[in-house]
């Protein structure tokens, strides 16, 4: 009974799974089943990742990446939310613009790194512009999707009481769309991080976690560096996602937003 209840504990099981995987990797590396030249010893990777936490150079790189990420996400939100509100409240405009967005959306944002590199001289602008383009779409789509979900009775009630369309938007549509926008921003945050790092890898530059990996590529234990940096990138991704989830739960306790990943 005791053992059974142990296995029902979510946190404990998760820790067990992680520990099991780490042990397996370590054992594989030590016994030579996994060639250390192919995948470095996981103990070495973890130790390396720990030294990164106090390495000022690495921390500066992370700060550079996060600055570009935050700027890109903020700009994308500032562009996509108003655009989504316009398209969501004006079906005629939406119908006219749709063929164009349908074509723009599938363009892989990564390809735009090459274009941005030709247009902008400043590395920071390359990163931000690509992140804005890629992370705009989930916010735009979630905003439009949320507007469709607004209670029509509430809108009609306000309208019949003589409120202007702007007041209807401000008092009903916007508050009830907010949870959807938040979900869009959370999805966009992951995309923006991927794009900023990709831009650093592809366009080069002097700072950022992508550049850090590129520079590590030449050293002897390059693999250990790369995997350790990837671990940190995963931690950043997890933290930012967790932060957004927490904020969403706090702010929109009254509403459970649908987390569609379109």
């Amino acid at each position, binding site marked *: 009974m005791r053992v059974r209840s142990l*296995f*029902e504990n979510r946190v404990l*099981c*998760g*820790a*067990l*799974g*992680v520990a*099991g*995987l780490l042990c397996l990797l370590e054992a594989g590396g030590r016994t030579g089943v996994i060639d250390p030249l*192919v995948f470095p010893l996981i103990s070495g990777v973890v130790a390396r990742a720990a030294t990164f936490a106090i390495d000022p150079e690495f921390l500066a790189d992370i700060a550079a990446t996060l600055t570009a990420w935050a700027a890109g996400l903020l700009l994308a939100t500032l562009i996509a939310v108003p655009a989504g509100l316009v398209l969501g409240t004006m079906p005629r405009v939406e*119908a*006219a*613009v*749709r*063929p*164009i967005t*349908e*074509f*723009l959306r*599938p*363009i*892989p944002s*990564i*390809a*735009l*790194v*090459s*274009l941005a*590199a*030709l*247009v902008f001289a400043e590395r920071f602008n390359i990163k931000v512009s690509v992140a804005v383009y890629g992370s705009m779409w989930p916010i735009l789509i979630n905003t439009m999707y949320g507007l469709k979900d607004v209670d029509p009775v509430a809108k009609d009630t306000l309208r019949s009481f003589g409120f202007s369309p702007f007041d209807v938007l401000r008092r009903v549509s916007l508050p009830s769309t907010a949870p959807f926008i938040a979900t869009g921003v959370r999805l966009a945050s*992951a995309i923006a*991080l*991927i794009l900023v*790092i*990709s831009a650093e*890898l*592809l366009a080069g530059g002097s700072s950022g*976690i*992508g550049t850090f*990996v590129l520079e*590590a*590529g030449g050293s002897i234990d*390059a*693999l250990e560096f*790369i*995997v350790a*940096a*990837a*671990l940190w*990138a*995963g*931690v950043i*991704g*997890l933290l930012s*996602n967790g932060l957004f989830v927490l904020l969403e739960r706090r702010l929109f306790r009254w509403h459970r937003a649908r987390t*569609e*990943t*379109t």
Partner: protein
Amino acid sequence: MIVLRRIGRLWLVPVVIVVWELATRALGDDSFPPPSTIAGRMREMWLTGPPSRLWINDSAIANIPPSVVRLLGGWLAAALAGVTLGLLLGRSALLSRLFEPIVHFLRAIPPPMLLSFFLALFAIGPEMQVATIIFGVIWPILINSADGARTIDRQHLDTALVFGLSRGQRLWRVILPSATPKIFAGLRVSLSLALILMVISELVGSTEGIGYQLLDARRSYDRPGVWATIVILGVLGFLLNSAFLAVERRVLSWHRTAKQTT
């Protein structure tokens, strides 16, 4: 009539193209060539072959099909692995408690971070590109399949049990069909991700493919060439998405009708 209405919906497209043409000509900036120049460059790059081959030239045959094959190959492999593992995690509460944290962590790692790792592992070539695509796109499929397999109508499962369906039969006739809509949602997200990863993996390590052409154009400061490759990538993304939606509509049509009758 329907055709006319369809065409009517596209009225903004020619307007945008004409405005774009006029604006870029007035601007005269090399970074923003007019669409007619881009179209001409696209013709030079891919359509100078003999009429018997629909004008498709050798460069198009050498670059576009390999990219598409790698993209679809990686995506299908990820789909197979993702659905299998997802169903496992979705049906076993213990396995899901053990491995869910690892899955979420791995998903949080931005795939470009691992490019250098795969590059060191496989050297430049299709293996490295396919590995990058698989690692990047498996997570949405896995997580959605697990979610779909977890949230199955209790009644359906109990009915299957009462009728004495074997484990395999339950999997094929009850679990898999009810998880299909979620699995397809994951597959769609990962298809557009696969296109992004195809481009980035070709930009980093490749000697052929659309991404390589993009890199080539950027290196030689061939601005119309960069735009032309971006347009062709947009067309490819649009086609892939449309094809996927057509398949999805066919496969899921039973699902919609089944929902309607209940």
